[in-house]
């Protein structure tokens, strides 16, 4: 794709606003965490926070691509579960096969993304139904394959992707490998949206597909690519989760809704047309900071759901109110 050197001013403004919303919430929540646990201000603990938040941030970035084009991807969590289960079955403790298997995992993810994209664009099934179908399908496949229980084994060189932490790194002290993966992934998806023409196309398709089509945008290709990016991010997140917390049959459960929630908290608009990669990044970091904060407060697990629900409604309500006031 060709590079677009200059962004128009009118597009830049909402992007900056979205950045502010997500960032402000994140800083406020992180400040609250630091107030309760001052050592969270140390770089080492912040790096650890980033490491644990990495899968959610990566998922949110992928989900953002689909949200920008006006759809939803509910199959992400199932893909992450499939990745964790498939990796442990295929590698089965043999470190030599790790990289080949990771390649195979990405191939599976891309296949799921292509199916989602093709069904939405050519069979005209709404994405919420399509990806609900693939969610059931992929989850069922993963469980049927593994027999409904975790089996196989993940070798250290696979698990290190999620849990390795380099010590004695100059300047910053400790550096988790997952944070490097996270930074690399965010840079890639940022470039995809801001460095290529794809970002403009995605916004145009999400805002008004008919108008975008008349203006010559390849609507189908734009949509399909968004689902592929989303699936690829689910695979990446799955690999980190597998390394970080090991193999389980519900590794990815509920992650798709968290990813959607993260994008929305960061200021992305459901049904398309508004949002930037920073909505996803800071939305996800905010959500994860919220989880951490509720954990520190010692609330029972169940009530955390309730507070997450309230924050979700409040965040979207606030952004709706801002948009209403501006127009």
């Amino acid at each position, binding site marked *: 794709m060709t590079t677009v050197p200059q962004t128009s001013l009118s597009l830049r403004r909402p992007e900056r606003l979205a950045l502010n919303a997500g960032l402000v919430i994140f800083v406020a929540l992180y400040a609250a965490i630091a107030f309760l646990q001052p050592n969270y201000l140390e770089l080492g603990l912040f790096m650890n926070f980033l490491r644990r938040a990495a899968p959610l941030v990566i998922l949110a970035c992928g989900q953002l691509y689909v949200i920008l084009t006006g759809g939803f991807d509910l199959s992400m969590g199932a893909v992450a579960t499939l990745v964790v289960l498939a990796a442990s079955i295929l590698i089965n403790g043999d470190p030599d096969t790790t990289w080949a298997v990771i390649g195979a995992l990405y191939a599976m993810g891309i296949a799921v993304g292509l199916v989602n994209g093709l069904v939405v664009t050519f069979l005209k*099934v*709404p994405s919420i139904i399509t990806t*609900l*179908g693939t969610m059931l399908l992929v989850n*069922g496949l993963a469980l*049927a394959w593994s027999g409904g229980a975790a089996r196989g084994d993940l070798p250290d060189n696979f698990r290190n992707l999620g849990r390795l932490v380099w010590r004695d790194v100059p300047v910053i002290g400790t550096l988790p490998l997952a944070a490097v993966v996270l930074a690399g992934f965010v840079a890639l998806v940022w470039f995809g949206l801001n460095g290529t023409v794809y970002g403009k196309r995605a916004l145009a398709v999400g805002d008004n597909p008919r108008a975008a089509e008349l203006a010559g945008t390849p609507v189908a290709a734009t949509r399909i690519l968004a689902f592929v990016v989303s699936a690829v991010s689910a695979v990446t997140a799955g690999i980190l989760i597998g390394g970080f917390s090991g193999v389980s049959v519900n590794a990815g459960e509920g992650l798709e809704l968290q990813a959607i929630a993260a994008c929305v908290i960061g200021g992305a608009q459901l049904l398309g047309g508004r949002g930037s990669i920073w909505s996803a990044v800071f939305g996800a970091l905010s959500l994860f900071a919220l989880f951490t904060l509720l954990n520190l407060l010692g609330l029972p697990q*169940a009530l955390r759901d309730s507070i997450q*629900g309230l924050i*979700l*409604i409040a965040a979207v309500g606030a952004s709706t109110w801002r948009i209403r006031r501006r127009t």
Partner: protein
Amino acid sequence: MTTDVVKPKPGLSVAVLLAGLSIGFFVVVALATGETAQLSGQGVTGLLQRMVALGLVAIGQTFVILVGSIDLSVAALISAVAVLASHIMQGDAAMMLPAVLLCLGLCIAVGFVNGALVAYGGINPLIATLGTGLVIQGVLAASFGALQGSVAREFQVVAYGGVLGVPYSLLLLASLSIAAGLVLDRTLFGARIYAVGGNPDGARLAGIRTERVILFAHMVASLFAGAAGLYLAARLQSGTPWIGRDGIYDLESIAVTVIGGTILAGGKGGVAGTLAGVLLFASLDAGFNMLGIDAFLKQVLRGAIVIAAVAVHAVRARGHVA
């Protein structure tokens, strides 16, 4: 507009086609596996009884989808109602009426909050109802230790009793379906629902208070979810805080509604199609059981069928869907 086939009532044809397919599948599988007992009156009643819980939720879901909204909080509400009913009754028949009334009151309140957030708050319905669902689920799971009990034996008649071989639960589903169908087809409220879903700006210009219609649609959806919760409580004797979520009633009710020809954008569809979608799910379930397909493979097939069933009528749509 276009000159393709004359479609007198598109919603109904989808319903008839789906129902025919479901019944055909059920009969063929029953004959092929030699389980002809499934085709007796009792077997068919069993098949129809599989429809009750999902059917009730899905009728409510049809109302909100018709106005162009959606309700993801139904699963949590079902659990809440089931737990609350068994907690209040504690096996005491005298507490049946207060328990049912309190549950329905809770449903009206939840529906009101959902509807107010969507219609007056302008919050995207997916997020608003996901949020209220999370709130309910969290409060429920946190307080479940203090909320135990079981429904009265007399209350279980709802799930297990019947007249002339027809279970009360089926009669309940049938009468509520007919009532819902009549409301949508024959009343002013029904006409307003279609108007608001089809073209909200047009409806507002025509003098309809669109916000109020959306609010009422959400209350209807919550009440139907509550009915499903009460039925499940009667069937299982006591509610647990996860019966709604484990049944995936939120996503499945949306799936069967869309399979039945109601479009997500609103304004088109109806109860008949939704019930046919529920019948499809019920006969698939029963058929897979007869064939002895394992639970995971069942889920795979279900996923594929959801997509295929919607694709069959969505593929003809012009323009883009998201």
